[in-house]
């Protein structure tokens, strides 16, 4: 029993942090708000540490207490770490925003942590019911978070996200039902004797559609721009990084499970999805005037690149796993860093994030301008940043699997993306200040500045010395 608890520690420490924060906020009325942030970060860090110990120890939690429900193998543990890092970025970047807008800190953190816990269940679930529970754990706090601002747009985002999320959950559930009907079990990777092929295909399509909503893959991407724009900035960052990462991680498991049944159909389905997602994401992003909307479409496009991983995941799962996780880490720092940077710039309340507002930033705040440029160039895939290496690794894998045309489509897409990633840079560096721009404040937001710096360092370091992280992620 003790051993089981020990293995569960990564998840337990998150639950512990949730409980401590809830208790603290109701017991001590006059507690400093920083304390909650410190508690939340401490809980997540503890979880990272335990995950890391478990990863090093290599003893897996499996089959003992909940047979074939969850598995804490190296993949799950490294996913926990990735999800935790994404959450830490959000927690740190949210503090100033919440204080500035007079929003409650403790509740926000509890919601973030609950969602993270849901992410853990998703990442470790090997049973469709477990995955469904994880999905709901992940999504329900996210619906509340989208409307946390209590403004009209935020409320609209919340409702939109909720309705579409509910629909996607329902679709997912129907898929699970078909899966059960076809195979007589709801566990993944179990030996199945009777396979009803059409039904398993239907189930696969429905389940992928359900997750297509979460990762914002075309044609399920419609909610993304509105929700990303309407939700409070730190929450948008959370959606774009943590939730997307969690969805991709479980997508990888589901994919491998379905690959056993019908390799050809799965790959075709994913290929079409990937091409559409990249192309539509990139083409639509070209015409965005708002930075948040542009990042929303860019995140759709990046989902497309990540979907490419699944075109060779069946042939070469180890490499696909490495490519996907490396891309996720790099993407989390790039996108999370940019959203945090935006939080840093907008400060209190000022939610207008048009690209033209960046004009003259290089004069007013050279450091932030530099970070923004590096992160945008990394998103566009220029070496020596991590964005380039992540793309290179995926393209290499796709090429190896023999999909040359797909690689060409992907590189053309990344060429298109350069145009819109350059627009903020043009605004920052090439244009003089004219019209409204980001206000200057005397306050220095150290937490957001810290996150931004961390993102910058990680993006460059991951690009220059990628091998350590590749080995860790690939095991």
């Amino acid at each position, binding site marked *: 029993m003790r051993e089981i608890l020990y293995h569960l520690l990564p998840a337990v420490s998150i639950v512990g942090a949730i409980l401590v924060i809830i208790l603290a906020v109701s017991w001590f009325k006059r507690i400093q708000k920083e304390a909650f942030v410190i508690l939340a970060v401490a809980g997540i860090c503890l979880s990272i540490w335990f995950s890391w110990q478990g990863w090093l120890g290599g003893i897996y939690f499996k089959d003992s207490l909940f047979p074939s429900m969850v598995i804490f193998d190296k993949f799950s543990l490294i996913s926990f770490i990735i999800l935790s890092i994404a959450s830490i970025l959000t927690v740190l970047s949210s503090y100033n925003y919440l204080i500035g807008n007079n929003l409650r800190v403790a509740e926000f953190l509890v919601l973030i942590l609950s969602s993270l816990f849901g992410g853990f269940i998703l990442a470790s679930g090997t049973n469709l019911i477990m995955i469904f529970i994880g999905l709901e754990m992940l999504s329900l706090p996210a619906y509340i978070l989208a409307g946390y601002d209590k403004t009209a747009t935020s409320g609209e985002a919340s409702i939109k996200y909720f309705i579409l999320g509910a629909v996607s959950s329902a679709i997912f559930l129907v898929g699970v039902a078909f899966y059960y009907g076809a195979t007589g079990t709801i566990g993944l990777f179990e030996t199945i004797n009777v396979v009803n092929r059409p039904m398993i295909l239907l189930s696969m399509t429905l389940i992928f559609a359900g997750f297509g909503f979460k990762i914002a893959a075309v044609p399920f991407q419609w909610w993304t721009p509105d929700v990303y724009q309407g939700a409070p900035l730190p929450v948008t960052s959370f959606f774009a990084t943590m939730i997307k990462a969690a969805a991709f991680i479980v997508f990888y498991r589901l994919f491998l499970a379905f690959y056993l049944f019908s390799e050809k159909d799965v790959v075709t389905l994913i290929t079409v999805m990937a091409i559409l997602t990249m192309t539509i994401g990139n083409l639509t992003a070209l015409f965005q005037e708002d930075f948040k909307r542009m990042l929303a479409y860019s995140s759709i496009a990046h989902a497309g690149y990540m979907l490419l991983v699944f075109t060779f995941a069946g042939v070469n799962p180890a490499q696909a796993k490495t490519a996907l996780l490396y891309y996720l880490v790099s993407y989390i720092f790039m996108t999370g860093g940019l959203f945090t940077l935006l939080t840093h710039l907008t400060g209190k309340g000022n939610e207008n994030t048009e690209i033209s507002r960046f004009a003259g930033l*290089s*004069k007013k705040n*050279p450091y932030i301008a530099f970070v923004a440029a590096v992160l945008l*160039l990394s998103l566009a895939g*220029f*070496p*020596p940043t991590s964005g*380039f290496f992540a793309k*290179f*690794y995926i*393209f*290499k894998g796709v*090429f*190896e699997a023999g999909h*040359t045309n797909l*690689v*060409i489509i992907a*590189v*053309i897409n*990344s*060429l298109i993306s*350069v*145009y819109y990633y*350059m627009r903020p840079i*043009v605004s920052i*560096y*090439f*244009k003089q200040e004219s019209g409204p721009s980001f206000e200057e404040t005397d306050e220095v937001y150290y937490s957001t500045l810290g996150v931004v710096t961390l993102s910058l360092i990680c993006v460059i370091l991951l690009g220059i010395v*990628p*091998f350590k992280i*590749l*080995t860790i992620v*690939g095991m």
Partner: protein
Amino acid sequence: MDFILKHILTFIIFSPLLGIALISLVPRKYEEGVRPVALFSSILTFLLVVWVWLRFHTDGFFQFREVISWVPSLNIYYHLGVDGVSLLMVALTSILTPLCVAGSWVEIKTSRKEFYIILLACEIGLLGAFCALDLFLFYVFWEVMLIPMYFLIGIWGSGNRIYVSLKFLLYTLVGSVLMLVGVIALYLKSGNSFNMLNLGIVALPKNVQIWLFLSFAVAFAIKVPMWPFHTWLPDAHTEAPTAGSVLLAGVFLKAGAYGFYRIAMPYFPEAVEYFRPLIFILATVGIVYGALVSMVQTDFKRLIAYSSVSHLGFVILGLISLNPEGVSGAVLQMFNHGVSTGALFLLFGMLYGRYHTREISDYGGIARIAPFYSGIFIFVGISSLGLPGLNNFVGEMLTLIGAFKAKPVFAIISATGVIFAAVYMLWAVERVFFGKIKSEHVKDMSAREFVTVLPLIILIVLLGVFPNIAISRISDSVENFILYAKRSVIDTQESGENVIVPIYERKEPEIILPEMKMNEEVKSEAAPGEEKYSDPVDTEETTDVETESGKQNDENSGGPTEVEQPQTETQEGQ
């Protein structure tokens, strides 16, 4: 010290980082102080390069090599090394950068800190691309040089800078992303290796070669730029600040030609054979077109830009000639064009700083206002049009000799480019420097300005009189290049007869690769009905066939040893 000596190339490539670090420490109040720092840093790089130049053995393969594992799982190495041609390009970069710093001394008045940081970052990318011996590393540096130049044009450019910088970026990127596909494909097809010393030794199947060659060649052709991919160049040159123009014309374009020299042509010999006529045509069209368009330009910087298209056409013409004269001429021309055109842009920058106009018609009679300046400008202009005794003449002459040996027709057409060069350059000089005085009186060249161009003038004379200082260092590298790139190309024999009556059409290209040959032999043994080589007695062409088959035998026996030779040298080098 020993550490530095062992990693001298790393120190050269990243020595601008020292300047960047120091510059970023200078407070904005004392922004003018960044100029000496940048100058010091770039001169330090130059001195390191001089040290390498002096220690360089003329009889060697790649020298000063450094191999460190970078990404072991993908077999990517941090692998550097220089041979004669890379060294020449490194030298060119390190000579032009301090001059760029000096040339922007008073021209750049806003955000000097950023300007010099970006200039030095650009140098890192260029030096790295010329030293890289790992294809992945090469690609990384290839992209690294791009972004600083984009900022250089976009921030400090004039006029339509935002449009032009984006055009430059997107144009170049179209090539780079396709090259990335090529890099990945080449990596996978050649046994997961990025090692540029071993890539291309084992020739790939022909259709693969053709596609890979296209993916690389388009990237390099855009950078060179070959006609018809040149349209970004005049815009970028015109709007860029002086330092940007100098670096662009001086070194950036050479990176494209260097890519042809190092990667595209030696790795894919059959594709070279396949595309050779096309490349000849494009190079010739580029030479003539560039020269003709230069003639009608009203903007002086545009004129120099189009003249670059013409001069770089010579470089490609020389490379594709695939004989020692042509290739050495092309490499020399790469260096010489950098020196001459760099000097022209620097000099015109000085004039522009005084009058703020680029229109040729706005000038007139400068020779009477600023005689000293005019003398130097005309001297450099004459070197650019290829006056014997000055640098460009040697390169162009060798290139044309090489081209004449390979394909006389193209050489003859290209030679008109030299004449047109004289026309546009002298005409422009006449309109600007002689005639009625149209411009107000300004100061003649200052001592600082003279010192800025002095090194280039010395080089112009030196390379014109003693081209051997460069040729002796590149000859081994050139031989090696021809050995690889010419594997599938058989040119007409270099005897007098053939020059008079050139045989430049061949029905069946001969493939001299040993494995291919063996396959064919096996085939012919299996199917005795198709005995091509043993029974060629059909018509009167008997003598021809005999000579050809004799040649084949020669090559067949010589082939394997020739191909293996670099390998052994590599091992010795290690």
